[in-house]
């Protein structure tokens, strides 16, 4: 057999193992804090008021625990995933020495970085030099909170972090890391770092606009900033995803289906609807095109926001040595490194929630079928109402709809991550003036035009 198949298999195995470790850990931590501990408190015979307050505090802490557990492990996995995927694209094997299949490679790297000497260069502004990685990393941790609710199918434990201004919150927080980069670059007392920092600032500001505009387009179609609502609007099928016009094509597909089934009444009903909107089909197709272009703009802007190739000018290894993190070493460098990958994950998960239907399956019956099947199995368990019985344990642990949604969102997000890695393996880097010109002269006008077009098309569909 072709040895490449083995390599792909190893990569898949490694991914599955890591993901089950990550999400198992998150799940266990959330369950322990949000379900098990409150149950214990309630059962312990404390005064009811104190007990319920304590359990509410614990349940409010769940999202924080989930993110605190998830972010570092996930960043470690993403580093490994990137290295293995790059190896696949470049006919190599990648790190495969530490642990089975190189499973523990990044864990080992993290330990190595922890024990490395922490150097502050001569003439550096020590306070800012230290603060920069923190300011760079902190937003990516607090920024993902509103996404939790959408990713878990609005699970009751995460409902509290679902802000009405959810996506705006995420974008606002995501604009902070550039402060960290500028701070670090300036505080390093190194010309290369400084140039990297300046570039980063210019780039982040330029590409934030198309990025936000593409998100605005989605919000415009959805009519809300609430991520859970946006995700829920796309639950029907592939066609109701925002990348395919948020259901613009749905009536026409329904028409075709009804026509094929010979359901004349339904055909009549839909046809009447069309007569009110004669330009409807045309507008719908245009809208789909607009949305796909917006998705492209989003991906481009996101790559620029998280400094990925072809927009990795702040680091630009061949020009600026290592850009803003040239002078960093040890744990501070590790934080920069982890934050970069976390940011990548965040933008990919935003894309999958906003454009790719969040945690909903691409085909209509899939999600419901799975949920019903798992729910049916869970109902069979004995004593599912009694606290601390095995049935209760499993029921409180496994929520069918959350399982399904988590699966799909992981699949979508990591597919986007792999796509970003593929881009990284292929494209060369922009030059700074070309980057700015591309951002200001191409992407921003394009997204503005499309945004206006979309508002009108939306009325016509």
């Amino acid at each position, binding site marked *: 057999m*072709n*040895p*490449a198949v083995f*390599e*792909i298999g190893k990569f898949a195995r490694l991914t599955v193992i890591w993901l089950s470790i990550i999400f198992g850990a998150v799940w266990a931590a959330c369950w322990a804090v949000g379900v098990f501990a409150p149950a214990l408190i309630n059962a312990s015979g404390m005064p009811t008021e104190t007990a319920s307050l304590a359990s509410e505090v614990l349940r409010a802490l769940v999202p924080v625990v989930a993110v605190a557990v998830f972010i570092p492990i996930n960043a470690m996995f993403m580093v490994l995933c990137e290295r293995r995927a790059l*190896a*696949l*694209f*470049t*006919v*190599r*094997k990648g790190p495969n020495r530490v642990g089975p299949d190189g499973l523990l490679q990044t864990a080992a790297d993290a330990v190595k970085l922890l024990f490395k000497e922490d150097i502050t260069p001569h003439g550096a502004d020590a306070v800012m030099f230290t603060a920069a990685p923190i300011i760079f990393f902190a937003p990516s941790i607090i920024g993902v909170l509103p996404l939790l609710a959408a990713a878990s199918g609005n699970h009751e434990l995460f409902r509290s972090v679902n802000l009405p201004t959810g996506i705006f919150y995420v974008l606002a927080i995501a604009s902070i890391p550039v402060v960290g980069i500028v701070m670090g670059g300036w505080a390093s007392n190194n010309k290369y770092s400084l140039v990297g920092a300046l570039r980063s600032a210019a780039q982040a500001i330029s590409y934030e606009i198309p990025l936000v505009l593409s998100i605005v387009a989605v919000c415009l179609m959805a009519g809300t900033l609430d991520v859970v609502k946006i995700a829920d609007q796309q639950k029907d099928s592939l066609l109701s995803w925002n990348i395919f016009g948020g259901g613009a094509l749905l009536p026409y597909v329904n028409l075709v289906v009804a026509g094929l089934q010979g359901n004349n009444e339904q055909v009549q009903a839909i046809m009447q609807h069309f007569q009110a909107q004669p330009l409807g089909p045309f507008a719908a197709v245009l809208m789909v095109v607009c949305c796909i272009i917006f998705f492209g703009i989003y991906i481009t802007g996101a790559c620029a926001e998280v400094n990925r190739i072809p927009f990795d000018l702040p680091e630009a290894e061949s020009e600026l040595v290592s850009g803003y993190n040239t002078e960093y070493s040890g744990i501070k460098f590790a934080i920069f490194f982890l934050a970069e990958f976390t940011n990548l994950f965040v933008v990919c998960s935003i894309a999958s929630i906003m454009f790719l239907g969040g945690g909903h399956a691409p085909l209509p019956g899939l999600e419901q079928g799975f949920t019903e099947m798992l729910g049916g199995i869970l109902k069979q368990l004995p004593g599912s109402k009694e606290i601390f019985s095995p049935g209760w344990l499993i029921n409180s642990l496994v929520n069918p709809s959350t399982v399904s949604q988590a699966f799909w969102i992981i699949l979508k997000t990591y597919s986007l991550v792999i796509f970003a890695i*593929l*881009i990284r*393996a*292929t*494209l060369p880097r922009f030059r700074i003036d070309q980057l700015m010109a591309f951002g200001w002269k*191409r992407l921003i006008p394009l997204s503005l035009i499309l945004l206006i077009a979309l508002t009108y098309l939306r009325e016509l569909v």
Partner: protein
Amino acid sequence: MFGLVGRAVESLYYVCVGLWTVAKHTGRAPITKEFPDTMPDLPGAFRGRLALAVNPETSEHLCISCRQCERVCPDKCIDITAHKSPETGKLELIDFKIDHGLCMFCGLCTEVCPTTCIINTNDFEMSDYSREALIYDLKKLTLTQDESAHYFSKKYLPIPKPKPKPAPKPAAAAAKPADGVAAPAKPAPPAAKPAEGAAAAKSAPAATDKPAGDAAATKPTAEKKADDSKDSEKEKAAPEPSAAEGKAEPDKTEG
């Protein structure tokens, strides 16, 4: 306007072509050689660590202490200690040292060796803890009979004929080593014989001013002087090889 759109679409197309080309590589077998697990398949010509071969058939040491390699080495990393045996009047090899820290693996010594004694093995893992440990002495350099056989076949070298046992070779062998020993050691080259022997034989008519085996005569005077003085030094140093060995040994164990 349409030109702009056309260019954008074209650019996007070519980016996608690039992405697809890279993505296709996922289906190819990795070219990685996992080095310590699978050793590289090095060709016979590979110039690795230097070693002294023995006759693969008779296990007789092939070195005749002619010092050709010592003379030709650009790095001067070879150091031969030999003395003339008082009984037979023949050169006797006492010690043969190669400083692999100096060696640049050019392979010139193996080309000039009249008895195909000094050869490049395929061994390239010679890392050690001290520079002294890279100075290999006669014992460390000499290959076993099996290894010699392996390299002789791998490098397509002709198996040298064993030296005639009584060997009443004239004492002049010291002055004209190549002449004296190359003749019996050079059999009719078989088909696979590479480079030096065959080429030398073939090129004889072209290189008119160079009678074969005339190296000692054409030796530059300066070098001759240096060699002579070195020789005399070696002669003096000869009685104490064990001391040198004793010095080398602790270093090695230390490492």
